[in-house]
């Protein structure tokens, strides 16, 4: 336990008990090592093996990685999925910023309740929600039927479901709360008198937004973007269920290697590539935080 000031770091007095230090480092580095890294590392190892005639060959090679770039449509699907996730991330982060700012501009007494009303949908099973989204957006779904009944349209709108648009809508709806929460939590810590000061100096609300609220919300925005990108990039169920013939994503390819295809080496290699991508996303988000200075 400590504070964030770098000064405090140096202030931490040398412990009498090395034991306590060891325990502290042990817990923080050992637990993740044991429960996360070791299991996953063994998997990364698999990615350097190959499957030949249905048998795993335990020689280290880059064949699977080569396959990603050269064979079949892995690369194409991968790029399509990156694009899809990036687009959803962009839209969701923009929406989430707007919503977080909206909540932030309410009086303190109602903020938490509004925030929570945006979190509540997370408590309904996501499978059920996808089903529900589908039943709303279908050609004979509640939306079309409703619009037809109201006479607002005379033909069902078809692109709502089984299209890229549908993937967009569904992913955006499913993952929006994950973007709102971190952004709002960051805004919530902005000292009230900063806004007073910026207004005093002549900033319009929009300028205050640009210069104070968003820069100080940046760690939250980065976190929200990373959450959204990773979750959508890894989600292969939603695109599959609402994307129709367009719903084939990279996650699906990864998944398919671990079933009857029994191609664990390729699956692992593809997973490592997925990991590298998300790491890149995190690094990019991290870059935007460079200039952040803690009080």
């Amino acid at each position, binding site marked *: 336990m400590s504070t964030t000031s770098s000064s405090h770091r140096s202030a931490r007095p040398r412990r009498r008990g090395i034991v306590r230090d060891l325990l502290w480092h042990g817990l923080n580095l050992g637990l993740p090592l044991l429960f996360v890294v070791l299991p996953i590392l063994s998997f990364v190892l698999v990615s350097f093996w190959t*499957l030949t005639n*249905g048998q795993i060959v335990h020689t280290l090679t880059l064949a699977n990685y080569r396959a990603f770039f050269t064979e*079949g*449509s892995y690369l*194409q*699907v991968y790029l399509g999925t990156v694009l899809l996730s990036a687009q959803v991330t962009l839209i969701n982060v923009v929406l989430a910023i707007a919503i977080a700012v909206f909540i932030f501009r309410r009086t303190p007494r109602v903020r938490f309740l509004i925030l929570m009303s945006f979190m509540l949908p997370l408590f309904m099973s996501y499978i059920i929600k996808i*089903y529900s989204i*589908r*039943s709303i957006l*279908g*050609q*004979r*779904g509640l939306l079309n039927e409703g619009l037809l009944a109201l006479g607002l349209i005379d033909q*069902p709108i*078809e692109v709502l*479901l*089984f299209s890229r648009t549908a993937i967009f809508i569904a992913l955006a709806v499913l993952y929006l709360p994950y973007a709102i929460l971190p952004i709002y939590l960051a805004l919530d810590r902005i000292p009230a008198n900063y806004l007073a000061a910026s207004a005093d100096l002549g900033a319009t609300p929009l300028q205050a937004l640009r210069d104070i609220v968003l820069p100080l919300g940046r760690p939250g925005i980065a976190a929200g973007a990373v959450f959204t990108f990773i979750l959508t990039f890894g989600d292969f169920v939603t695109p*599959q*269920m609402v*994307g*129709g*013939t367009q*719903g*084939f994503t990279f996650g*699906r*390819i990864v*998944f*398919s*290697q*671990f*079933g*009857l*295809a*029994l*191609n664990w080496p390729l699956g692992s290699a593809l997973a490592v590539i997925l990991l590298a991508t998300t790491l890149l996303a995190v690094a990019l988000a991290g870059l935007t935080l460079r200039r952040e200075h803690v009080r």
Partner: protein
Amino acid sequence: GPKGEVRLLAYEGYADPAWVEEFETETGITVKVTYVGGVDEQIAKMKASNGKDYDVVTVDTASLKAFADQKLIAPIDKEKLTSAKNLLPDFQPMSNATFGGATYGVPWAWGSLGMVYDKKTFPTAPDSWEVLWDPRFKGKVISLDDANNDINFGAIALGMKDPFNLTDAQLAQVKDKLIALKKNLLTYFAGFDEGTTIWSENDVVLMFSMGELAAINLQKKGFDVGYVIPKEGAVGWLDNLTVSAGTENTDAAYAWMNFALQKKIGADMAKKYGYGATTDAPQGMDYANRLIWAQNPEDYTRRQAIWNEVKAAN
């Protein structure tokens, strides 16, 4: 797991709560059911734990060999399988589950991957799979999403003799055929229910289905649909009860299998879920002889890759 417990790895409908209750009171053995959504999941799970988490696993004929090759299931000890006598004569030899001199599964439930059609659009049942490719029905066709069975289905639609052992050239043909179908599709679906739900919420008239249950469910919902095995034939699937290679409760495993293979259980399953039982002749499923019974295919890995290509195609 502890003795006195049997752990099932099963599909929905293979471990009805009523049966479980009856079995538990009868034998004093507790039942733990783990449901899976598909064979891919099932094999990944079994492989990662060397089968140690389950005692009885339902495996379809087409993937039995893969399970056996990976040493995930153990040969059946026919001595202990006292209910084998209840099997219909056709299933008695368990030839579908026998290779390398050992028998790995007991036939348990079967069905077909036939065509569901809208009776308003088709007053008479379409007789060929070709209708799915008919541009007139573009956007009104849906298809099962299952790497192995889609390739089987493509081969069958193309009239290939042995859909389970395809040459490179044949596979290429099948792939093109499936890509061509894709252009006509509204979407793929992955389970019985997905198929029927999508049907009911969209303007769909044709479906390469997951089986009888699709039609039954749609009819229950008030849709006027029919189920047909086209002239080219259709994949027949047969799920088997197998004993996990990792089991420590062999006796409990056999107890469950013997219990499940009773005629009354089979009849109940047919009634509740529309699957064909292996212990009783199912009503209305009179096309068993026209089905092309699924076998272990030439190369799963390959098929998966091809299927991925189809799905990635534009």
